[in-house]
């Protein structure tokens, strides 16, 4: 079976912050329908990479292609409309609106968001709203937030905000979802249910996931493929088993963990 083109292709991406090369010529692919983990030590450039992919930072050099289309110079909302959504390492819930409104704001194809189409077809807007509400409630249920739907998002705890942000990202029905440390600050049980949900969505809808994570159990048990960054470069890619066996990765990042695992 020949491999289909990857949904995301990153080639020699470079991003400077003043003198610092946060991303220093990184290249990797994300296969369509895969769950790919992006790992590496603190400051490796992982979040910066997600910023580049989602349009929140501009490439200084190199190329990024999303579904065979260059996204260089595109604004975040344009990239989002091509079917890429991201969450933020430091959560960004919309504190002054309700949990449900956070979710509904993410609903795709809502004609009520544009005044001309709202006036032209208020019924369609209402129908979409009702359907979005069902989808939102189902997602909130999975993420243990159902009972908080009417609360202001600003009243949620840190972990709950993380969950809401992930649920909101999934609400967009994007074809690729970038998650920046989805497990950080979330209880182990809910962390597992996030991972289960991701696996189900990949199965059912073929959604692609690229997630940054420091929790190696999650990475090794759930990812199909692992991309390892260090000092702005991709130093290795492969299956979890290959990565664990890679001496360079072990040296750069996994050291302690690999030591524990290999008796």
């Amino acid at each position, binding site marked *: 079976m020949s491999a289909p083109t990857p949904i995301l292709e990153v080639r020699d991406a470079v991003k400077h912050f003043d003198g610092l090369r946060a991303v220093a010529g990184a290249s990797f692919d994300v296969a369509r329908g895969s769950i790919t983990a992006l790992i590496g030590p603190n400051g490796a450039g992982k979040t910066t990479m997600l910023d580049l992919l*989602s349009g*929140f930072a501009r490439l200084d050099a190199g190329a990024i292609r999303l579904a065979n289309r260059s996204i260089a110079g595109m*604004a*975040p*909302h344009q990239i*989002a*409309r091509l079917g890429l*959504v*991201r969450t*933020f390492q430091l959560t*960004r*819930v*919309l*504190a*002054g*609106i309700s949990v449900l*409104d956070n979710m*509904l*704001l*993410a609903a*795709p194809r*809502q004609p*009520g*968001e*544009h*005044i001309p189409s*709202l006036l032209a077809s208020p019924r369609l*807007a209402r129908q979409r*709203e009702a359907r979005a509400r069902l989808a939102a409630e189902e997602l909130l249920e999975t993420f243990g937030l159902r009972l908080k739907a009417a609360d*202001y998002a*600003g*009243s949620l705890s840190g972990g709950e905000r993380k969950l809401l942000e992930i649920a*909101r990202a999934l609400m*967009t029905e994007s074809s690729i979802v970038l998650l920046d440390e989805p497990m950080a600050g979330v209880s182990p049980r809910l962390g597992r249910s996030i991972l289960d949900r991701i696996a189900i969505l990949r199965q059912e809808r073929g959604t692609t996931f690229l997630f940054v994570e420091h929790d190696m159990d999650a990475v090794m048990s759930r990812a199909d493929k692992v991309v390892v960054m260090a000092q702005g470069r991709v130093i290795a890619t492969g299956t979890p088993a290959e990565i664990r066996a890679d001496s360079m990765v072990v040296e750069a990042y996994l050291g302690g963990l690999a030591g524990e695992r290999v008796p």
Partner: protein
Amino acid sequence: MSVDFWINVGVLAGIYGIFTLGLQLNAGFTGLLNFGQAGFMAIGAYSVGIFVVSWGLPLWLAFLLAVALAVAAGMLVGISALRLRSHHFAIATIGFAEIVRYTLQNAEFSGGNQGLIGFDDDWRSVNEWALSKLASVELDAYTQLPLLLAIWATFLVLLVTMELLQRTPWARVLRGIREDEDATAALGKNTFSYKLQSLGIAAALAAIAGFFVSLNITYLYPTVFDPTFTFFGYAILVLGGLGSYTGVALGSIIFWVLLEGTRLMETSLSAGQQSSLRFVIVGLSLILLSRLRPQGILGNRNELRAEP
């Protein structure tokens, strides 16, 4: 206490109510600090005057064109300044309102410091007609009553319209922007376009308010549109509460009853001192309110944007 005096208070409350609906949309629901609202009001009012006096257009057509022109000005300000972050945008809008005032003060087309007069004949005939109707209920002695009714009818229609608009998915995007523009953009919303729409609608509301100002004072001169009047709007907003259109109506009534009602105080102060005292009283009331009820009378505490 004369009835005419209170009719005038009602006229001002209605005009500034319309004016502040726009600020509520911008500051309360989009998180946009628009400090140039008086500039849009001036553009609206002066365009009416110029279109009628210099171009000979009928008043109602002039009104529609004035609103369109104010919206165009809003787009121009938006396109040049909306990419700035919040506080810089606020300063840019103050600058805009100052530019408008200086232009009106010095340009020939606006009559300079002499101002404009003689544009409201069409309104006068409507006023005559309305007064003749009011004669049947023996209210025709109050010559400003038709204006009061016209302003409040307009205000209420606009209030209900804004309230309905606020319940749509469109307004949800605005509130998302107010909370976190980047996070909203990450969900695929063209936040710039929404901010532009918000500003354009506010400019239209300011122009409608400006139209009524021109009918009320019958004589347009630049100091009527002093940029500081925008802050009357913000005082009303704070009184009534951020995030509530009904609060705008209530805030505007309270503000003008306080500011004008204090004219009636019997004191031994000089006229200048008394007029300063009136502002002191309004200021103290605002401070008191901010201690007792920081979200304003009808405001929603949860929707108050906490500064990042």
